[in-house]
């Protein structure tokens, strides 16, 4: 297992090639799920009895919020791998994830505002969930800002890893303190430990969209990582070969 990992994924060169092989498959899985989720979510699922057709923004809002949080968790795991075992690929994955995560967070905030305007009558309220997602965005931006000013590659990776880890330790604390501070948001639609408070005909498109967003993240991540690998290993023989071959 470990040797397989090492051979296929861990060295930048092999990662570049393996990711290139898997990319079209993940991409097509994303497209399938996305098209199913979009069509059945926007056209087939029944309108909500209270929120009408307006609720359909849930199919963008919830998946992007989920993905935004999951990306931060992925970053923190990569940060741990970077700090403890100094795995290069993990550092590349961490840096490449940051801006994708920031965009998903921004998307969650924007779609949330658009949803909030007709439902709550206001674009923004200082509610616990909105606030903690906003803080998540700040954490992402801080990470990106820190990495953008450090020129040395190795210290950039490690400094980013430290700040990502500090962020992930603090994230639950921030989240619960903000919940304690103020809350108005509707309860979670999906919960692992309870029967979801949503009809199956609305649920399956939502799950499909969440899956699609995860896969989309994976696709973009792999593409960005391949790009970053080429940039980092610019001076090596194999990159010259790849570039010559592909151009």
């Amino acid at each position, binding site marked *: 297992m470990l040797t397989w990992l090492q051979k296929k994924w861990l060295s930048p060169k092999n990662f570049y090639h393996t990711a290139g092989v898997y990319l079209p498959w993940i991409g097509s899985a994303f497209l399938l799920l996305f098209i199913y989720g979009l069509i059945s979510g926007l056209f087939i699922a029944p309108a909500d009895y209270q929120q009408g057709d307006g609720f359909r923004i849930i199919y963008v809002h919830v998946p992007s919020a989920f993905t935004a949080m999951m990306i931060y968790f992925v970053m923190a795991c990569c940060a741990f791998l970077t*700090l403890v075992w100094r795995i290069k690929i993990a550092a590349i994955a961490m840096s490449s994830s940051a801006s994708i995560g920031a965009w998903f967070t921004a998307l969650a905030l924007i779609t949330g505002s658009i949803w909030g305007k007709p439902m709550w009558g206001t674009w923004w309220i200082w509610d616990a969930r909105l606030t903690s997602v906003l*803080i998540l965005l*700040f*954490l992402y*931006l*801080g990470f990106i*800002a*820190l990495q953008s*000013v*450090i*020129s*040395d590659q*190795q*210290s*950039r990776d*490690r*400094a980013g890893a*430290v*700040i990502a*880890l*500090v*962020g992930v*330790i*603090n994230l639950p*604390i*921030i989240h619960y*303190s*903000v919940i*304690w*501070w103020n809350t108005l948001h509707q309860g979670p639609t999906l919960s692992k430990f309870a029967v979801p408070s949503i009809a199956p005909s609305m649920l399956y498109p939502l799950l499909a969209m969440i899956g699609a967003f995860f896969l989309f993240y994976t696709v973009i991540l792999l593409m960005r990582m391949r790009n970053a690998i080429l940039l980092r290993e610019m001076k090596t023989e194999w990159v010259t070969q790849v570039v010559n071959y592909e151009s």
Partner: protein
Amino acid sequence: MSNLIIAMIRYELLITMRAAYSWVTPLLFFIIVVCLFPLAIGPDIDLLNKIAPGIIWVAALLAIVISINQLFSQDREEGYLDELLLSSYPLTLLISCKLISHWIAHGFPLIIISPCLGFILNLSTHQEYALVMTLLIGTPTLVLLGAIGSALTVGIRHHGLLLPILIMPLYIPVLIFAIGAMTAASVNQPIVGYLAILGALFLITLAFSPLLTSISLRIGVNQC
């Protein structure tokens, strides 16, 4: 070992006291920021009393961020930081001493002066007590969290506003619970629960901050 700790703290404090600029500026900043608010909002004493806890706490938080900015930078320029890194004593211990003396020199004056600022914003005695207690328990947490960011940015030449961006989101829980205590105090409710949570936040931060700060310092000095 305890000799080392005492000597180190004494040494750090002596340096800070002799260069008064470094600890007086954040304090003055704190006072001036608080005094700007009545001018900006108007002399409505009820309104000021209502928002005074927020004003004082945000100003204290900013003053801590400003002072934490210079926690390691001077030492790095003088080469003292390299001595610390090369020292045979554990780096976490040395850093802890540095943080304690930093809090005494930069956090404690804020706490001393805060009741005076409370008076000009018309706080009641119970609120004054809550203010001092929350600052007393809250500011060490701010210093501990700030140290990590300060260590990470120590090698970056023009980092300026980077540090506040990095660490201020992490300050939010402390701010929320401190203000919670102040709000409870304004309606004469007990504040012990809030202080306990602030204490818990302090202990959590105390557990991981010196370690992460020393890791960050080793990263920070190598970058240029």
